[in-house]
């Protein structure tokens, strides 16, 4: 394909995915999708290769091919839409519900539309479906294997969730996004198969050229997720010519907690790290995936199998996989030091209301300058809840919301500072914290110092990284998020 048609085709197919994403955000009802944009949309070819993705949130990056493959294996027909959230059959964690629609032009399936959205409740042991203490998948909510989305299936789903009306509206938004792709593809007047091949080949060329510029070698790094004991992650990233292999040999087996990650989540974190190392210009589609080889020991906590609990694998382990791979790649590429490496999930609620928030922290410093303070790093980029909105909606008062001075690591360039957010509950409630980097600090690079680990406190007493407990009226929850690592030795 010539350079002009290629450019126009790239823009057209990316435009279809972006418009799907816009429709999804625009027509969704829940604030988690509408405001926090915890959703993604992508276009696949008839063989299940990803062609284009609307980029909203990195944790969904490249994690949907498994969903489409799982549906294709079951023989979908034109006119159907399939639904799934089973982490062991194409999903990531149960709140992420994925819809896959075969797109038929002229009666034949020519492509697939795929949309994924974080639904703020899918049943299970706690409101919000993000339990801190689950040990098996059944406690985390309703499991939907890949099935046709029929009226009956939707009824079963809605009967199992706490907020069925909002779920129904959000599902309708996902269907609308997928259906839009069919109309847009028909309008494109492009030879579709040729267009898909060209766009994928383009991304693969860009990825391979960028990889070829990295020095060959085997780069190792280690990290951990904090439970009562540490759960180790080991990674070896091998750059060989224009390929990258990422191997998690030596990583812990799955654990009896909810930090296990299915391979699709691990893959998303790896793709994120590679894209950061290669530069933001490299497009994300099957062409990039083709230049990567990702392996993990079967049954390890980064390739968890049924019936492991996985809900925090998506939020916390994905972060640690991403910043461990980035740490390894730091010896081959000019990447920033480690950021806070956690989403600091904070859930406070009763049977009547649920407040869910993730908190930003310090980003790592880089050769280009200091790390930004008080931002989401890695696999999330969602917005905070304004204090005035929070206090109008919930019986809580925010006592403090500031940057934690000096929590970023020292260095020629300083790591970004973490945040302190202090909340007083005005009536009895339940607190659930799923956080990390409370014992282990984000590391600096090139002689830069580590960031300060975070802390969780209730009424001034330290509580662990992962904790669930009751709160009395007047209790104060303080979350201090980690600072980012510094870059470069501090000049004496």
């Amino acid at each position, binding site marked *: 394909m*010539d350079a002009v048609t290629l450019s*126009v085709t790239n823009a057209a197919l990316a435009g279809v995915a972006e418009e799907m994403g816009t429709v999804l955000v625009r027509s969704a009802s829940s604030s988690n999708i509408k405001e926090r944009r915890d959703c993604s949309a992508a276009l696949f070819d008839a063989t299940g290769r990803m062609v284009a993705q609307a980029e909203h949130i990195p944790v969904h990056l490249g994690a949907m091919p498994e969903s489409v493959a799982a549906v294709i294996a079951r023989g979908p027909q034109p006119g159907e839409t399939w639904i799934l959230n089973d982490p062991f059959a194409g999903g990531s964690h149960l709140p992420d519900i994925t819809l896959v629609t075969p797109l038929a032009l002229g009666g034949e399936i020519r492509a697939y539309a795929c949309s994924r959205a974080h639904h703020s409740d899918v049943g299970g042991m706690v409101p919000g479906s993000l339990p801190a203490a689950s040990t098996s998948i059944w406690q985390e909510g309703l499991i939907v294997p890949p099935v046709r989305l029929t009226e009956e299936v939707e009824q079963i789903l809605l009967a199992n969730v706490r907020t069925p009306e909002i779920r129904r509206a959000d599902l309708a938004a996902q269907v609308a996004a997928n259906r839009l792709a069919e109309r847009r593809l028909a309008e494109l007047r492009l030879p579709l198969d040729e267009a898909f091949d060209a766009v994928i080949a383009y991304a693969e060329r*860009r990825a391979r050229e960028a990889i070829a510029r990295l020095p060959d070698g085997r780069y190792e790094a280690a990290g951990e997720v904090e439970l009562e004991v540490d759960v180790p992650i080991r990674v070896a990233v091998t750059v060989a010519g224009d390929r990258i292999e990422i191997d998690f040999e030596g990583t812990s087996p799955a654990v009896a907690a909810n930090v296990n990650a299915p391979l699709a989540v691990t893959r998303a974190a790896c793709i994120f790290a590679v894209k950061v190392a290669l530069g933001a210009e490299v497009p994300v589609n099957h062409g990039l995936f083709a230049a990567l080889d990702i392996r993990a020991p079967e049954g390890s906590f980064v390739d968890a199998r049924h019936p492991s609990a996985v809900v925090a694998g998506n939020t916390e382990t994905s972060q640690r996989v991403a910043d461990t791979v980035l740490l390894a790649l730091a010896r081959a590429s000019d990447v920033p030091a480690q950021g806070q490496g956690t989403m600091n999930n904070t859930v406070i609620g009763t049977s009547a209301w649920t407040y869910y928030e993730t908190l930003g922290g310090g980003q790592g410093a880089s050769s280009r300058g200091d790390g930004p303070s008080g931002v989401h790093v890695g696999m999330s980029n969602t917005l905070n809840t*304004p*204090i005035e*909105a929070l206090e109008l909606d919930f019986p809580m008062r925010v006592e403090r919301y500031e940057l934690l001075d000096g929590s970023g690591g020292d260095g020629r360039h300083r790591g970004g500072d973490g945040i302190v957010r202090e909340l007083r509950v005005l009536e009895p409630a339940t607190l659930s914290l799923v956080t990390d980097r409370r014992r282990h600090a984000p590391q600096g690079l090139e002689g830069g110092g580590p960031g300060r680990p975070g802390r969780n406190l209730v009424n001034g007493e330290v509580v662990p990284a992962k904790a669930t407990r009751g709160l009395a009226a007047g209790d104060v929850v303080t979350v201090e998020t980690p600072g980012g690592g510094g870059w470069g030795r501090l000049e004496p």
Partner: protein
Amino acid sequence: MGGISVGVDVGGTFTDLVALVDGRLVTAKVPSVPGAQASGISAALAAAGLDAAAVGVLAHGTTVATNALLERRGARIALVTTEGFRDVLEIGRQDRASLYDLAAGKPAPLVPRELRFVVRERMGPEGVVVPLDDASVRDAVEAVAGAGVEAVAVCLLFSFLHPEHEQRVGAALRAALPGVRVSLSCELLPEFREYERCSTTVANAYLAPALSAYLEAIEPRPLVMQSSGGVADVATAAARPAACVLSGPAAGVVGAAFVAGLGGLGDVLTFDMGGTSTDVAAVLGGEVQVTAESVVAGVPIRFPMVDVHTIGAGGGSIAWLDEGGALRVGPRSAGARPGPACYGLGGEAPTVTDANLVLGYLADGAVLGGEVTLDRELAERALAQLPVDELSQERPTSSLRDWDLTQRALAAAVGVVRVVDAEMARALRVVSVERGIDPRGLALVAFGGAGPLHACSLAEELGVERVLVPLASGVLSALGLAAADLRRDYVGGSFEAMEAAAARDLPGAETERLVDARYRGQSHELTVVADCWQANLAEEHERRYGFRLDAEPEIVTRRLLATLRRERPSPRNEARSTEPRSRPAFVDGEWLDVPVHGPGAAVIGPAIVELPGSTCLVRPDWAGAPDAAGTLVLERTWTR
């Protein structure tokens, strides 16, 4: 008020003027003087042969506030806020600037940490939680006094509901620091969401000194275009400088809406393609679409602003081949200096303007703005640098090496125009399809130096059947200024109080009651007419989001829009059709001898119409004629 009504738009490169003298449009275009915007106004008046004393109303569009914000050259200011929340301004909404470029910093806050001071106090939804501590107020005032600032912003939590503490802090500051401007968030924007309210208040304090000084120096006293698309007197504009940051783009959209309205069209997409950037917007029912959710230069400003979408591509955008082998246009631009290669000012990179010249759409030897002469040979040389063998779709039988420079440049030019058109179409989809508006029923109003060249092919891409090219397309922003109504926006408090304020500020103005409403549990609002707001909310929700929601609606904020109509210019078409010339142009794969018309002619495509300040390409299957105001109205005669 007697005298001539004049609009003057001071842009980065040119200062444009439109005046209505005895029903006749007088236009002028003079170079802007960097750093001395006001001097461009007198130069433009002189160029138009107008006596400043004869000017009744001078409406002015300015980039002074915009540039101060973009370049972070505003005043040194302080912020006073609630203890425990000093960094709300810096944390923002916690999102990072770029998903994958982790080293990309957030834009620096307009007030650095050492100039953010706190007072001990707390209001909650129900009122006082912690009483205002007088000692902490004294400390804060002393700290501000010692900081040597030109202005100070005050934003305390929940002041939009309970302003008493904020007012007391403001009074203390005003009493102690008579020379320092004090902006209170409860006066400026009594709306919830502390970060956005604080950011708007801070932007206002930050821009106030520069904009006030600038406006004070202009004679005659102008009306100033606000971002909302309405003009205001100097005192109002100087008090709300953050409401003027989109002054320039707003004027263009108002001008386009005005011209479309003269032709009886209320629903249009506006397409303003200039040298380095392109602004697109939607106009529905004759109303410029405004939003209160704009972010300008990384700073949220919650004043109503024209909902304009800007992309960094224009006539000066540079074409290049990326390492994956795709032809790209922009974001790098040749700017005004050295400009496109064909300007002959030393630019060597191939640009969109070079491509339009090589294709014959612009005339070789044409003179732009009285000082630049287009040179086709330079354009060819620049375009031929692109690796043409990668660009050509149908490979000729002879080897490409045998192609001469002209053939290579031609192949490149066709590609550059196709790529830039795809980008423009994408921008137009953002302000239409993505806002729930079907572009197919709308007309496209094309202006700016390069807009009318690309309008027909964009219309084809979007399924739009009608294109309007205003006679004054090169100076449409200035026309928008001459045509704009006086407007003031009020927010918060009761309708009655806001109406009383409007009667005081703009005697005789029409007022409209609006509410920001939502369904309980949602965290986003829609602005709708207050009368029958529930039905309006349901309707708007369906239009924007595609469905109705069976939930309890609630009002979040009350607004009042006050508009004082000004006498509108009614330009007449005085251009007389002249015998067309012709020149070769490359259209749909072949060289055709295409008629070249001046303004005022009825045309059948393919044709070229040369207007003052712009050139229009009428593609095959398009035809049209000027309307009574001189706007060229093109319709698609046949859809392939």
